[in-house]
């Protein structure tokens, strides 16, 4: 995941035309990637700009979670996705790749298919909220990219996720 977040924050830096070097931003990005949502306060904290992808991932929330072997959106998930849709509508210059993930309790192929179901559930919800399908692309990682690596439900719950990864460009 870390490299994905680095990519986002590099994009953020370019979008803001910030003079801070991307290395520092990437450092903040790693923190955000761990889900803390409290980036170090710096004069150019990208998360303070509500139109930034950093704001999207940290303040709005870039992910929704799922129960074991399901792709049904929870009420909390729907609330997050409604807010995601609002941000995407306000920022039409961005597109998104929705990554579907599974925990390690499952075979590789099944989990790839499960991740595809989860990313599609998010995509369909965003489309139902008025986001153009052409701005969204679904991607499954199955169990290949866990966020947390303990073998307990506390970690598994965070790994069963779909993450909306913002990228520059109006369509993917």
């Amino acid at each position, binding site marked *: *995941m*870390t490299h994905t977040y680095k990519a986002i924050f590099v994009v953020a830096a370019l979008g803001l035309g910030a003079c801070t070097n991307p290395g520092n931003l990437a450092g903040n990005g790693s923190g955000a990637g761990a889900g803390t949502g409290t980036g170090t306060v710096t004069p150019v904290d990208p998360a303070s700009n509500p139109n930034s992808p950093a704001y999207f991932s940290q303040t709005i929330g870039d992910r929704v979670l799922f129960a074991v*072997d399901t*792709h049904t959106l929870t009420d909390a998930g729907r609330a997050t996705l409604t807010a995601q849709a609002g941000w995407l509508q306000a920022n039409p210059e961005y597109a998104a*790749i929705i990554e579907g993930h599974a925990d*390690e*309790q*499952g*075979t*590789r*192929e*099944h989990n*790839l*298919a*499960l991740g*595809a*179901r989860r*990313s*599609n*559930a998010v*995509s*369909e919800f965003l489309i139902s909220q008025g986001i153009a399908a052409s701005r969204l*692309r*679904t*991607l*499954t*990682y199955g169990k*290949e*990219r*866990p*966020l*947390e*690596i*303990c*073998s307990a439900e506390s970690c598994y719950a965070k790994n069963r996720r779909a993450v909306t990864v913002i990228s520059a460009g109006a369509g993917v």
Partner: protein
Amino acid sequence: MILSRITAFLLAAAVVLMSLPMAALAELNLELDDPNIEPMPFAVPTFVAENAEASAFANQIARVVAEDLTGTGLFREISKDAYISTVTNFNSPVQYADWKAINAQALIVGAVNMNGNNVTVKFRLFDVFSGAALGDGLQFGGTTTSWRRMAHKVADAAYSRITGEGAYFDSRVVFVSETGPKNERKKRLAIMDYDGANVQFLTDSRSLVLAPRFSPTGDRVLYTSYESGFPKIYVLDVASVGRRALADQPGTMSFAPRFSPNGQTVVYSLSSGGNTDIYRMDIGSGAPVRLTSEPSIETAPSFSPDGKQIVFESDRSGNQQLYIMSANGGEARRISFGTGRYGTPVWSPRGDLVAFTKQSGGRFHIGVMRVDGSDEQLLTSSFLDEGPSWSPNGRVIMFMRESAGAGGEVGLYSIDISGRNLRRVTTDGGASDPAWSPLLK
């Protein structure tokens, strides 16, 4: 490749030896389905070096032969310290009494000759208690770089003659080499001999790669890569390491490929709009044919050896179970009915069994069942056992095992379909997704 010249030759001595009186009632034979099987004691003296250059190989080849046989769990090597005679000439009469005295039921005698880069290996197998050769002598020719293959050929011949089973030591395994923690895992395709020797990497670690599968002749490998950013199927030529993406449909993801027995068709999974179904594609034309059209997950397809049927997994019943359908699609019949989830089915090369991964009671198992779903046997149990692959003779299954937690290790194991002889396959670092090649030619 190198060992195209395999010459069987009759030895003059064999005639003389065959005429000796039978000293024992028991024939040299191992019945692998016997639940009370005892490892057969054997001796493999250092092969005779027929010239000075051959001496280095003479010992190494004999060692690999011994390791192949003992590695099956079906044979037990008798220590050299116990030997009464030595073998200094390939054609000398066998001193049966000396080998009988140390209870060597089987005796493997070999000789190595070197001529420049060319290595010739001869071998004979003797049934000590019957006082006779078992089968003709064999000769294998190769080069200095292929000496391990010649050793595997010798062991294969001995194994097949004694067990009546097909050979499997002269084979390779393609797998995923893994490094780094679980949340930053780097994966590369690699290939090695079945016993872990001669590892060679086929891809770098820039792109996530999954589940390689050999072609029926072992010359190509299908696998899934995220090279494009999305899971997509590639075919790689083992000799040149050149690769190309299979034709795909924009906006879809494809994975879980396997070759048909004739090597011309690929069966795989394609995800579109969140739904995963099974497709087949002629590898030449790239034209896809959809085989399943269900709202459930259909994945992990594997052909029967005759190419007429496909076993796959589906959660159409509510959880993962195994099904068989025609290779042209159509109605499928469910074959797994036990409690738990069944996935990753693989049809055995002999056609009689399906190996699978089963999840039940919070554990993972590798198991086998008959193709009609009867006689389910779970062979292993651990935190995570997954992805069985058959040895070329259908007697042994290799699979991946990963342990729990942040420091969990992932490696390859093999087990006999009798449930005996669980063994770790030596790899340098983590390894997953093994796929066993056919027997090399």
